[in-house]
């Protein structure tokens, strides 16, 4: 008797769901088109998770979600409200720009999220924006788009994360003056000042390259670069390891001219101030990175002229085409 009641209950409970369930619209089709990610040969190989290949449908969906406040639980803002294209997908403040993040394996200033872009995007949607899935599910357009990207009628946080990760992977900046200089076909040369700055950056004199080196201008690791005598917890907040105190994610210096103020707490307004800091403002602390080898004398001790060269070089990392790349623009305002 008890059993039949239970069975009946289950039936009654599930019935409305069965009837409510929309049949797949005949117009829906799951046949995703591979998306060709383009970047120069001198960039590192971009690793893409096998379970989330980049597709035209996925990238477009991710782009829409990036610009659509529907993702936010109160619809008050979109990702793009803070991550604005005009500022290299950042905005004045401590907002980390979105630029070549496909090559990153740890995210946020303190490394809270370690893993792939899918992992950070899951965090951004589910935990930060607290996306209300039902609003997407009941939307006139999104369910079809999710179906076309992932072949699933049900929209999940994982699908959102995958779509946004696909879009993020297309956010590639590789057309700064420095990139053009590296490309032998372009006949672009650095000015004397810029080249002298390059030499400071890529030699032990400035020694910026050991952390901000390589073509990505970040080692994607965590360091204490000597900002404070009593550093903030940084990575140790996540790992609990006292040796991680004061260690923060090395930001890329690509488009650095456009993404001030600087450092995780926005303490420096200008690049001049940042250079002064590295030149004579370093503070020693037990976890300061051994690569900050001049910390004992306050910094790398540049002359005013040398500071100018270094600044001139940093400005060769600006890629204005990235700020106007139509493929990354708001898809709702065309």
């Amino acid at each position: 008797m008890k059993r039949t009641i239970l069975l009946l209950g289950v039936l009654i409970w599930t019935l409305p769901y069965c009837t409510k369930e929309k049949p797949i619209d005949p117009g829906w089709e799951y046949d995703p088109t591979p998306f060709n990610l383009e970047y120069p040969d001198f960039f590192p190989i971009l690793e893409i998770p096998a379970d989330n290949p980049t597709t035209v449908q996925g990238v477009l969906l991710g782009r829409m979600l990036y610009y659509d406040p529907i993702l936010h639980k109160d619809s008050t803002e979109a990702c793009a409200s803070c991550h604005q294209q005009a500022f290299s997908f950042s905005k004045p403040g401590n907002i980390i720009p979105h630029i070549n993040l496909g090559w990153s394996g740890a995210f946020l200033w303190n490394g809270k999220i370690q893993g792939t872009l899918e992992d950070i995007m899951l965090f951004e949607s589910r935990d930060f924006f607290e996306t209300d899935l039902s609003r997407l599910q009941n939307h006139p357009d999104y369910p079809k788009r999710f179906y076309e990207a992932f072949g699933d009628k049900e929209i999940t946080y994982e699908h959102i994360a995958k779509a946004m990760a696909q879009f993020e992977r297309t956010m590639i900046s590789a057309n700064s003056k420095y990139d053009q200089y590296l490309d032998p076909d372009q006949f672009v040369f650095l000015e004397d000042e810029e080249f002298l700055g390059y030499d400071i950056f890529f030699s032990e004199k400035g020694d910026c390259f050991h952390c901000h080196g390589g073509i990505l201008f970040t080692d994607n690791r965590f360091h204490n670069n000597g900002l404070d005598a009593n550093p903030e917890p940084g990575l140790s907040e996540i790992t609990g390891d006292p040796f991680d105190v004061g260690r923060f994610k090395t930001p890329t210096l690509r488009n650095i001219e456009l993404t001030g103020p600087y450092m995780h707490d926005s303490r420096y307004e200008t690049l001049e101030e940042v250079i002064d800091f590295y030149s004579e403002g370093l503070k020693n602390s037990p976890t300061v990175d051994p690569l900050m080898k001049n910390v004992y004398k306050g910094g790398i001790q540049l002359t005013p002229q040398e500071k100018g060269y270094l600044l001139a070089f940093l400005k060769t990392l600006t890629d204005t085409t990235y700020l106007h790349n139509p493929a990354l623009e708001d898809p709702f305002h065309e």
Partner: protein
Amino acid sequence: MKKNYAFHILILSSLVLLSACQKEATNGNVTIFINYNVGGQELVTNDFRYTCAAGYTFEVTRLQYYLSNFTLRKDDGTEYFLDEVFYQELGTTDPSIPIPDVPPGTYTSLSFVYGLDADTNVDGGLPNTLTNINMEWPLSGDQGYHYMKFEGKYKLPGTGEEKAFNLHTGATGNNQNFIEITLPIDNGLKIDGNTMQLQLNYDLNEWLQNPNTWDFEVWGPMIMANQDAQLALKANGATAFSIEPMNP
């Protein structure tokens, strides 16, 4: 009839298997395990527990390096060469080097390169992975990659002031500076279809002594473009390794 056919196959294949058993010795594998120490003491990072020949107490923070060109050699001079580069990073990578498919015989020495040989140590000589890009050696006029980044801190005697050391080795101009190391294998390593293990002891303290007592204060923290410093380290690094057979 069909059944009969299957029976024949069975007999035939067991014959093949049997003859395989009687075959001559077969290829085997060697696995090399890197075992760190600092002057015979256990390696513990971020702890001022060591004292170097020049008299400073020091700590080890990071160690990243390449090993390549592993070669096993027999007494008759024949050798087995593994054309592969291994990146090692303390606390991150698996500290073992697999040498697969080694022809049978008794090997009495192991050689390898600490760093990269001249053909590999050129710009773009290694695949464009994130790891290799972080090892680039970008100084003007030079090329290739860091062979090693060995970083830590030392204390000045007296004041106890802490300073950083960066033992970064690589090529300066045309001086390649990679280290070729050859170690005898006591009692030999007998390969015959088996997997043998070797322990490669790596004493980090040797970078700071033997033959050259390394004084952090004398050389200073910037040695990438200093060929004298590179040569001193090259000689020291050559004594940092020894082999211990792990098989009874």
